[in-house]
């Protein structure tokens, strides 16, 4: 069991606020790292950071952010790719965690924001909300070499850099508070502009 997991064992009911949790990531992201956001993170990240290698996957197919990030990681083996997904989306596509392992991609980090609800549709509970799902246990069981669970913001602030610098693929489960107001999701930029900007940043000559 890693230090990242032990640190959270005593505080099972704690949840960290979403925006400061994302701010940690914007502060430690590498300059040449691709960041894929979706759902709640796609709503908040553009308010915190602006980078040519940011891709806000809106409109998306729910559960598609991890496969899309995996594709980027496999095509750009020299770059790190960070996918910020949410519990509702991942639950639609849990098998993608296995696909990542089978692909052999080591340059991928998945940060799961688990708020227990479908936030952008108004906060309805997910099927996992009542009993709770040990997402870290799932990731560990399918073979992620580095898995962390973070419930407290101070832990995340202290350990995120080291965790995301560990051997990949990495899976960080962040237990966060739902956003109750201003939760609606809108595309931060038209998709064709995002695709053009990302393509230029990645040196696509097609």
């Amino acid at each position, binding site marked *: 069991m890693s230090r990242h997991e032990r640190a959270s064992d005593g505080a099972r009911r704690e949840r960290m606020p979403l925006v400061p949790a994302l701010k940690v990531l914007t502060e430690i992201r590498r300059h040449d790292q691709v960041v894929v956001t979706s759902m709640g993170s796609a709503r908040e990240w553009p308010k915190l950071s602006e980078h040519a290698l940011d*891709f806000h996957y809106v*409109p*998306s*197919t*729910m*559960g*598609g*952010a991890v*496969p*899309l*990030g*995996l*594709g*980027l*990681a*496999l*095509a*750009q083996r020299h770059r790190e790719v960070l996918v910020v997904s949410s519990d509702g989306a991942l639950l639609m*596509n849990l*098998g*993608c965690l*296995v*696909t990542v392992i*089978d*692909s052999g991609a080591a340059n991928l980090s998945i940060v799961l924001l688990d708020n227990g609800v479908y936030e952008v549709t108004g906060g309805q509970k997910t099927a996992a909300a009542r009993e709770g799902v040990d997402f870290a246990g799932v990731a560990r069981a399918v073979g992620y070499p580095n898995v962390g669970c973070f419930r407290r913001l101070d832990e995340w602030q202290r350990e995120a850099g080291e965790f995301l610098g560990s051997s990949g693929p990495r899976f960080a489960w962040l237990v966060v508070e739902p956003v109750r107001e201003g939760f609606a999701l809108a595309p931060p930029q038209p*998709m*064709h502009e995002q*695709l053009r900007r*990302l*393509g230029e940043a*990645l*040196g*696509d000559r*097609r």
Partner: protein
Amino acid sequence: MLFSGHEIAATLTELGVTHAIWLPDSELGGWEADLESAEALTLLRVCREGEAWPLAAGLYLGGASPLVIMQVTGLFESGDALRNVLFDLGLPIFAILGARSWLASGSRDSAKRFATPILDAWGIDRVIVEAPGDKPELAAHYRRCQKAGRAGAVLLAEGSM
């Protein structure tokens, strides 16, 4: 199956495909060893077909040339992912689709009945390869779609359920 594994691996290599993303059926599955051993190709296995389209999208955006291989039932299953990648993102992803029961005369398999209506409803440029003489159409259609920058599909006729 109309194409042997060796033939399909050679064709995809010649077309410059870098990644074959697949969830096979009983007929496509015979290609596994050849796809896996092709030097210029990487075979990627997904757990459900809905993963294949965004995975192909990421590869494409990263500069690779992916291709999706699944049974037509997987196309049905993965409709929202296909919609997003081909239409919201507008990416020219190409697919080889096993057309289940296509060659089984008198088949009442609904997968056969809905194959072309669903593709046509999505507006996907498709051809059907159902006899040995049609086989060159696979590469030709891929090239046409890539040149035009549009998504496309080949329905490969299968005989079994």
